[in-house]
C-alpha cells in the first residue's frame, strides 16, 4: 500500500506538471502571439566570434514567431501527456516545451529588436558558474547531514584570497590554486562548531557569513584601496579554446571557449553526479546524511565522514569564489558575491539535492539573469525588476511542494553524538 500511494503521488505530481505546461502554452499563445497589437521583426544573431558559421542571422516577424513557438510548446505538452500515459519518461518533452515557451517569450519581448542569441546563452552559463559551484558545495555538505548556509561566506572569502594572491604574485593561476584552501578553511570553522560543538547550523552559517563579510570588507578598505596596484590588480584567467569543439556553432562559444574554472566545473559536476550514487564515498555520505546511527552501527565514523565532506564542500565553493576575481574581473570589491551563495542554496533545493538538478536550477537562474540584462538593453514590455524576481518565485513554488515534495536528507542539520540515541 505504501508503495502504491507513493507511486500515485508521484504520478499526480507529474500530471500537475503537465497541466501547468498546458496552461503555460495557452498563456503563451494568448499573451505572446494573439494580444500584442503591433508586431515587428526580431533579429537573432548567432555568430559571436570565430566559430563556423551555420547561419549568421535569422529575422522573423514577432507574431509569426510567437505563434510558431507556442505551437511547438503545445506539441511538446501533448507529447509529454502521451509519454506519461504510456508510462514512459517525458523529460525530453519538458525540455522541448521549455524551449518553445522561452522562444515565444523572446519573440514577444524583443519585437523590433536585435537579440545576440549565442551571447545570451554564453552569458547565462557564465552567470550560472558561481551558482553551480555554490550549490555543489551545499550538496556535499547537506547530503552529509550538515546544513550549509555559509556558502555565501565561502564564495566571498575565497574570492578575496584568490584576488589578493593573484595580485601579489601577478599570476591568476596561483589565485585559482589557493582559492579552494580558503574555502576549505572557512569550512573548518563550520565543521568544528557544527560537528564537534553541535551549534545550531543555521545560526552558525549566518554568523560565518557575517564574519567573512566583515573581515573581507575591512581588509578591502584597509589594504586593497590604499595600495590597490599591489594588492588588488590580479590578472585574470584567459579563455582556452578547446580545439575543433570551440568552432561548433552556438555550443562552441558557449561551452568550449571558456576559462579553466568552467572546464573544471564540468569535471566536478560529472564526478559528483556519478560518485554520489555509485561510489563508496557517495554511499557513505548519503548514509550519514540520512540515518547516521545506522552508519555508525556498521562501523562508519559518522563525524569523521561529515568533517571530511564539509571541508571538501568548502574547497568546491572555493573554485566558485575564484571565479569572481581571477575568473572574471580581477579586482576584489566589497560584498561582490551579492547574495549568490543564497541563490546557490535555492538552486540546491530546487534541484532536489542532486548534482544534475542543482545544475539545471542554477542554469535557469543564470539564464534568467542574463536575459534580464539583454532585454533591459533592448527595451522590453516587462520591468527588469520583475524579471529578476522570476527565479525566486519559481523556487518558492518548487519548495512549497507544487511540483512534488522536496525531500531533504533526513538527518540534515541534526548533529550526531555517538551513543546519543541510546
Amino acid at each position: 500500500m505504501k508503495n502504491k500511494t507513493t507511486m500515485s503521488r508521484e504520478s499526480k505530481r507529474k500530471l500537475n506538471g503537465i497541466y501547468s505546461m498546458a496552461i503555460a502554452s495557452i498563456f503563451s499563445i494568448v499573451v505572446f502571439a494573439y494580444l500584442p497589437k503591433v508586431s515587428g521583426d526580431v533579429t537573432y544573431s548567432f555568430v559571436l566570434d570565430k566559430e563556423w558559421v551555420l547561419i549568421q542571422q535569422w529575422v522573423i516577424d514577432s507574431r509569426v514567431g510567437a505563434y510558431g513557438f507556442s505551437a511547438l510548446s503545445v506539441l511538446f505538452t501533448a507529447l509529454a501527456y502521451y509519454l506519461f500515459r504510456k508510462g514512459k519518461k517525458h523529460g525530453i518533452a519538458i525540455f522541448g516545451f521549455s524551449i518553445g515557451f522561452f522562444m515565444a517569450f523572446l519573440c514577444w519581448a524583443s519585437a523590433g529588436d536585435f537579440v545576440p542569441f549565442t551571447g545570451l546563452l554564453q552569458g547565462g552559463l557564465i552567470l550560472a558558474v558561481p551558482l553551480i559551484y555554490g550549490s555543489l558545495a551545499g550538496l556535499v555538505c547537506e547530503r552529509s547531514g550538515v546544513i550549509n548556509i555559509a556558502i555565501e561566506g565561502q564564495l566571498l572569502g575565497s574570492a578575496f584570497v584568490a584576488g589578493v594572491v593573484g595580485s601579489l604574485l601577478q599570476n591568476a593561476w596561483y589565485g585559482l590554486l589557493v582559492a579552494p584552501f580558503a574555502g576549505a578553511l572557512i569550512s573548518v570553522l563550520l565543521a568544528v562548531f557544527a560537528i564537534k560543538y553541535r551549534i545550531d547550523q543555521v545560526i552558525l552559517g549566518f554568523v560565518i557569513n557575517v564574519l567573512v563579510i566583515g573581515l573581507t570588507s575591512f581588509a578591502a578598505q584597509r589594504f586593497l584601496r590604499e595600495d590597490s596596484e599591489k594588492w588588488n590588480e590580479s590578472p585574470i584567467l584567459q579563455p582556452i579554446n578547446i580545439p575543433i569543439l570551440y568552432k561548433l556553432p552556438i555550443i562552441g562559444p558557449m561551452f568550449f571557449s571558456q576559462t579553466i574554472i568552467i572546464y573544471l566545473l564540468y569535471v566536478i559536476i560529472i564526478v559528483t553526479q556519478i560518485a554520489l550514487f555509485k561510489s563508496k564515498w557517495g554511499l557513505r555520505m548519503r548514509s550519514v546524511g540520512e540515518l547516521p546511527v545506522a552508519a555508525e552501527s556498521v562501523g562508519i565514523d559518522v563525524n569523521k565522514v561529515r568533517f571530511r565532506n564539509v571541508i571538501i564542500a568548502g574547497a568546491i565553493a572555493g573554485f566558485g569564489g575564484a571565479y569572481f576575481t581571477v575568473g572574471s574581473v580581477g579586482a576584489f570589491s566589497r560584498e561582490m558575491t551579492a547574495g549568490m551563495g543564497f541563490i546557490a542554496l535555492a538552486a540546491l533545493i530546487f534541484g532536489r539535492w542532486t548534482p544534475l538538478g542543482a545544475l539545471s536550477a542554477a542554469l535557469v537562474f543564470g539564464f534568467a539573469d542574463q536575459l534580464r540584462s539583454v532585454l533591459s538593453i533592448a527595451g522590453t514590455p516587462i520591468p527588469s525588476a520583475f524579471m529578476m524576481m522570476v527565479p525566486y518565485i519559481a523556487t518558492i513554488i518548487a519548495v512549497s511542494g507544487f511540483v512534488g515534495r522536496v525531500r531533504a536528507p533526513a538527518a540534515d542539520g541534526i548533529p550526531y553524538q555517538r551513543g546519543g540515541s541510546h
Partner: protein
Amino acid sequence: MSLELRGITKQFGSLVANDDINFKVEAGEIHAILGENGAGKSTLMNIVYGLLAPDKGQILVDGQEIKIKSPLDALAAGIGMVHQHFMLIPVFTVAENIVLGHEKTNRAGLLDLATAREEIIRVSKEFNFEVDPDALIEDLPVGIQQRVEIIRALIYNSKILILDEPTAVLTPQETDELLANMKKLRDSGRSIVFITHKLREVKAVADRISIIRRGKVVGTVQPSASQEEMASLMVGRPVDLTVNKADGKPGKTILEMVDLNVLDTTGRALASKINLTVSAGEVVAVAGVQGNGQSELAEAIVGLREHLTGSIKLSGNELIGRSVDECLKAGIAYVPESRELDGLISSFSITENLILDTHGEAPYSKGIFYKPAMAHQVALERIKEFDIRAQSANDPASSLSGGNKQKVVLARELSRPVELVVVCQPTRGLDVGSIEFVHQRLISERDSGRAVLLFSTELDEVFALADRIAIMYRGEIIAIVPATASREEVGLYMAGIRTATAKGGAA
C-alpha cells in the same frame, strides 16, 4: 562460537544500567535475555556490539578475551546484531544497505553491488527469505526489513547473532516465522542472543533463559519454567498475570461511529469506512499492527484530526466539527499513545499536570484567579488514589518513572465526569507492576458503567481486557470478533487475511 560476559558494569550518571553482569551463550544455543523495559538489556547488548563502552568487565569469544571498541570489532569477532530500531537507511536499496561499511569497489573505483546481490540471493535461498536486493527499504514491510538485517549479519559471517526485541514490530504471523527462522539459524550452528520481555516467545524458542532485573542477572532458568516463575523473577515479587474480570454487562450505546473516514491534508484516507460502536460497561479493543490507522482513528474521536467525513456520535451528540476541548468536555477521557509528548508537560509539576484540562474551572479557579492551594489538595488525593510514587506533588512530571507518569495521565483523565474512556497503548514501556494497576483500573472503569475503547498492538493486552475486538488493517476495520476468538484468528486479521472462519459479530 560461544560468547561470555564477565563482570560487565555500566553507569550513566547515578543510574547503574548494568551491574556486574555475568553470563554465557554456548555455541548452537538460543539464549534468551528476559527483562522489563529499562532493566538494562539493550545497554548490555550495545556494549557487546561496541556501540557503548563498558566501565568494567570482559567479553570473551570462544574463551579468548576480545576488546570491542566499535561495531567493526564486534563484526570482526563474528558478532552480528539485529537492532530493535532497524539500522537500515530507508532511501537505500537492500544491496546498498548491506554493502554499507564494507564496500568493495570495481576497477573504475565504483561500488561493486553485483557481488552483494549474488550473496543476498544466495543467503535468501539458503534460509528461504525471499528478499529482492534492489528493493528500496522504505517500500518493504517491517518483517522483510528485519530479514535484511539478518541477511546482513549472515553475509558478514556472524556466528553469534544478537536479536534486540525483534518481535516488537511484527504481526503474530511474522513473529512465528521469525521464531522458526531462529531455530533454523541455531541448527546451522550459530548462537543466538534473544532479547525480549515477552514470556510466551521465550518459552517457544529459547534453550536457556537469563533474567535481568535492575541491571543485574537475577537467575537463569530452563524454558520449562512457568511463566509466573519467570515474571516474578523479572519483577522481583510474585505476580498475577491474569486480569481478574467478570463478563461485561453492556448497557446503552455510548460511542457510535458511522462511515467515518479520516483523511490527511492531501485527501488520502488514513482510516476509512469505520463503523464501530462502544457501549457502556464494555471494553472494545482495537487491535492491529502499529501504523494501520489506529492512532489516527483515536485522534479523530477526540477532535485532533481536521479532515473527517461520516459521523462520530457520543450519546447521540455529533462530535465532528467540535474542538478538542469541546470533545473532552462532552465526556471523553483520553490517554494518548505517548505520555511524554502528548500526555504530560514534562517540565510542569505533578499538580499542574493533574489539572491541565480543568485548571480554568471550579474548584481550581474562581473568575480570573487560580487557587493553587485547592489544586494542591486535590493533587494529594489523586496521588493517593492512583498510587503515584512521587517525592512531592510539586516535583516536575519528568522526575517520575514511566509507570507513574501513566498513572498521572490516568488520574487526570478518569477523575473527570466522562462516559467514554479512549486509551492508546496504555502499558507500552511500563513495568509489570504498573501494567497490573492500569489493567485493573480499566476493568473497574468498565464495571462502573463507562465505555472503554482500547487501542493496543499487544495481543496479550487485547485478550486480557477486551469484550469485543476490532482489528484494523490498512485503515479499515476488517473484522470485529468476540473476546473468545482465537489468537490465530485475530493474528490472521492483523496480517490482512480475511478468512472464511470469521464468526460472530464480524462487520
